[in-house]
C-alpha cells in the first residue's frame, strides 16, 4: 500500500457554484481540522 486517503464526499445539485467555497468554509468542512477541495461536474 502506497497511500491511503479517507475523506467525505458530498454531492450537491446547485443553480450556481458561486457560494460553494463559502459553504465549504462555513459548514461542510471545519477548517481547523479539515481541508477541502471542490469541483463542478456536468
Amino acid at each position, binding site marked *: 500500500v502506497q497511500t491511503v486517503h479517507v475523506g467525505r464526499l458530498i454531492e450537491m445539485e446547485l443553480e450556481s457554484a458561486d457560494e460553494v467555497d463559502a459553504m465549504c468554509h462555513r*459548514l*461542510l468542512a*471545519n477548517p*481547523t*481540522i479539515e481541508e477541502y477541495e471542490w469541483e463542478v461536474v456536468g
Partner: protein
Amino acid sequence: VRIGVTIFPGSNCDRDALHAVELMGAEPVELWHADADLKGIDAIIVPGGFSYGDYLRPGAIARFSKVMRPLEEFARGGGPVLGVCNGFQVLCEAHLLPGVLLQNTHMRFVCDRVRVRIEATDTPWTSGCERGEELALPVAHNEGNYFADPETLARLEDEERVVLRYLENPNGSANDIAGVCNEGRNVVGIMPHPERVSDPALGSDEGLRILRSVLEEARV
C-alpha cells in the same frame, strides 16, 4: 436569577441541566432551538447530547439554529455561557471558543467518572471554586479529544484560559484539556458533566461547585 438551557433536537442533558439549575436555587428557563429571543435570562447553559444526531460533525448543525443568533450576541456582550459536552462542541463550531473536539484517540466512547483540576477561577463558571481544587466529574463522549493548532494552544496556556484539566486523560486531549474559556472569559466549554453530580440523591453534588459560581457572579 434566570438561567436558560438550550434544547436542540437530540439534546439529552437538558432536563438534568434544568433540574440542576433548580438545585442551584435559580430559575430554569427552557430555550427552544427555534426561539428567537432569550427570555430575559442572566446566564445560559448549552447542555450535552447529540444535537441534530451529530450529523456532519458534532455541533455543526446546531450552530445554525435560530436560538444561536441571540445566544452569540449575548456571549459577545459578555453574558455568561457554559457549554457542557455537546454544548462545548456547539460553542467551538460557533467560533465562540477556539479549537475543536476530535474523536477520542482510543476510538471508543468513554463513560466514566474522572478527576479534574480547576485551573482558572476568573470565569463566571469557576469563580466559586479554588484554584487547584480537584473534582470528580462524569464524562460521556465519543469526541472529547480537544485539538487546536500549536499557536492557539500556546496562547490558551499563556492567557490561562485552560479552565479545567484532567488528572487522568480519558480521551487524548491536547495538554489534558477538559475545558477552556474565550478571550473575554465569560464563555466556558467543558467536556465533563457537572449537572449529573448536582443532587446528593445521585451520590454527589460536586458539580454545584461549578454551576453555583455563576450565581455569585450575577449578584455582584
